[in-house]
């Protein structure tokens, strides 16, 4: 199962997705880290710039990555009750 | 462990602190675990010169009560907080009765000085001599 690396930016709290060489605000830019995930966390965590680094399980879909847990889908899209703030990565009703 | 940060002018009493269970009357330094009952030491405060109190984790807060109880009982020797402690807790520690800290990560004395003079007024009496604002208001 593909895994993505995600966290929140220290300065802003923004939800971030690891996009291969840098972070993106959008899950559609994320790249699967799979077996490299733990090593990436071990490298990035000591820099103390991204909080709550975690690997999450996703499924590939024609619309892009779909996190398996409701929690991570909410993080990827925005609050389901405020579609006006939804990020463009996934449709709100995908939550 | 880093250096001990002391707010006392007297020479450091360096005798090893013995655990409360092994403490013998007349002993001058004792070690209290976070959950130890500080009141058991009250009969021995005349002999004691240093009491170390353990803070095994940041969330631990029983030591604040222990220190305050010892000061309320009249202890004037050193009360040393030992463990997971940060400079930003100094005001709580000193007002509760601690006058030395042995933290896991070093305390920057410049930051400590700033921290200790940060709040110009306090709302409640504690073990230090600082008057609470209700006394200042009363006087005004």
């Amino acid at each position, binding site marked *: 199962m593909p895994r993505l690396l995600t966290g929140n930016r220290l300065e802003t709290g923004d*939800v971030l997705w690891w996009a291969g060489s840098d972070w993106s605000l959008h899950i559609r830019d994320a790249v699967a880290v799979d077996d490299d995930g733990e090593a990436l966390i071990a490298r990035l965590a000591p820099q103390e710039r991204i909080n709550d680094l975690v690997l999450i399980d996703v499924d590939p879909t024609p619309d892009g990555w779909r996190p398996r847990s*409701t929690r991570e889908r909410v993080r990827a899209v925005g*609050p389901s009750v405020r579609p006006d703030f939804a990020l463009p990565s996934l449709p709100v009703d995908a939550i | 462990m880093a250096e001990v940060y002391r707010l006392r002018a007297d020479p450091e009493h360096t005798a090893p602190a013995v655990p409360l269970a092994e403490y013998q009357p007349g002993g001058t330094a004792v070690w209290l675990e976070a959950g130890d009952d500080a009141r058991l030491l009250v009969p021995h405060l005349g002999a004691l010169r240093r009491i170390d109190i353990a803070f095994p984790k940041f969330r631990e807060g029983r030591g604040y009560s222990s220190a305050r109880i010892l000061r309320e009982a009249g202890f004037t020797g050193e009360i040393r907080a030992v463990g997971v402690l940060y400079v930003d807790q100094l005001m709580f520690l000193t007002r509760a009765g601690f006058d030395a800290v042995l933290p896991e990560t070093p305390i920057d004395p410049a930051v400590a000085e*700033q921290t200790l003079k940060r709040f110009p007024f306090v709302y409640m009496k504690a073990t230090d001599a600082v008057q609470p*604002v209700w006394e200042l208001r009363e006087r005004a």
Partner: protein
Amino acid sequence: MYRYDEYDQAVVDARVAEFRDQVERRLKNEISEEAFKPLRLMNGLYLQLHAYMLRVAIPYGTVDSRQMRMLAHIARRYDRGYGHFTTRQNIQYNWMKLEEMPDLLADLASVEMHAFQTSGNCIRNISSDQFAAAAADEIADPRPYAELLRQWSTLHPEFSFLPRKFKIAVTGSTIDRAAIKLHDIGLELVQNEAGEIGLKVLVGGGMGRTPMLGHVIREYLPVADYLSYMEAILRVYNRHGRRDNIYKARIKILVNDLGPAEFARQVEEEWALVKPLGLDPPPSELARIAAHFAPPVLDANAPVEIDLSNPDFANWVAVNTHPHKAPGYTIVTISLKAPGEIPGDASADQMDIIADLAQRYAGDEIRVTHAQNLVLPHVRRADLFDLWQVLVSAGLATANLDRASDIISCPGLDYCTLANARSIPIAQKLAVKLAPQEADLGELKIKVSGCINGCGHHHAGHIGILGVDRKGEENYQLLLGGSGAEDATLAKILGPGFDENGIVTAVEKVIDRYKTLRADPAERFLDTYRRVGAEPFKEAVYG
């Protein structure tokens, strides 16, 4: 309204400077996140699902128009134009940036507000009766007693690292609008035979994972002993409360393990030791604070009779106003529960409008209720129609106080990192479904939490809903029979849980059964449930 003096202002200003320094040290990596997190939490700053969330303290739920306008300004300047009023009478902002926090806190301090101790294992914001100083049923305004506690608990050197968070509520009325039996300490102002005011002290109530009702440990505590007695309770808890398991660390567990009588004995023993230390301020300090809460000058000739010929207006007056102690005046509750909207949310524009109304019509005061509504406490009945018209145009005239669509809901999994399920969508669906028949249903309190911590007070709901995670899916348990009022009880789980649509249907079935069971149209759902028990409802839902 309490006004800061030079001392109060200096403490709040120092707190802003302290946090500015702490944020700067964190941004420069001079301190680790591990060391910084407790510091930001003690300033009410959480990292939630989408961003930081800031919880601003609203002591005992009272603000004036100037402060409400500042809350609106913060929503616009630092957030996305709205805020969320909480079940602890505070306000939360959902889209905060750490780097902007020092400026935000400085803005708050400029109107005598702060975020002190809105998180962390310390004494939290003191809550109180939203109708304080206005309700006909109170013996005295509880807020001076709450303000004294606010000051005493601010940066307390001994009680800032308690086993767990600690919540205190104060009421001045036997009609309990502050849920004092569901707080770590609940205080009720009472009078002795000589007519002197003292405090009845309850300890060990709370919701969350192990809900319990508080126990009276003192029927009458003289005001002169107030703070030293609080010190004694907190010291017994700080020393002996469990620290090995955060789910068993609240004072209710200690009180329950020791038994209320033994707990009370230990408090009295400790109190005998701390009382001589001179921790209690003189009576002049309470008097000084109380002088700030002098009631507004009211119009003695305010007319009682008003024109109620507009039926929508008459309905709103009947549902959303409450008797005031002064004739010709009333207490207005502004519902933040328009069916389909997010419970407790208010836009910056709405906050500004409410601030204007408070200034114009309500003695310049606004209260936040634990049911996530706002209150204008001192309104001339003769001004009600003008006020109502403004509310109508702002979308704030929903007439549903304490009715089926006046639903309490925590932010749930739409925002909160602790949540297991979304709670707002459930509240929205139920409110839309139930609003058309709510007049017939009468008082019905529905409360929704997205996790076991119970910020949505599901255990105190006539109908409570608890969101849980079941194998990765959102699942909802149905509870019946709770109350947070003077007749407090804890709601009980009815049976197996439901999915999002299933829970809405289940609530509808419960309500349909209630309509066939009620003794007369005036019997509340809660009273019917208490009379007939859970069985008929179980059969209606699962049968």
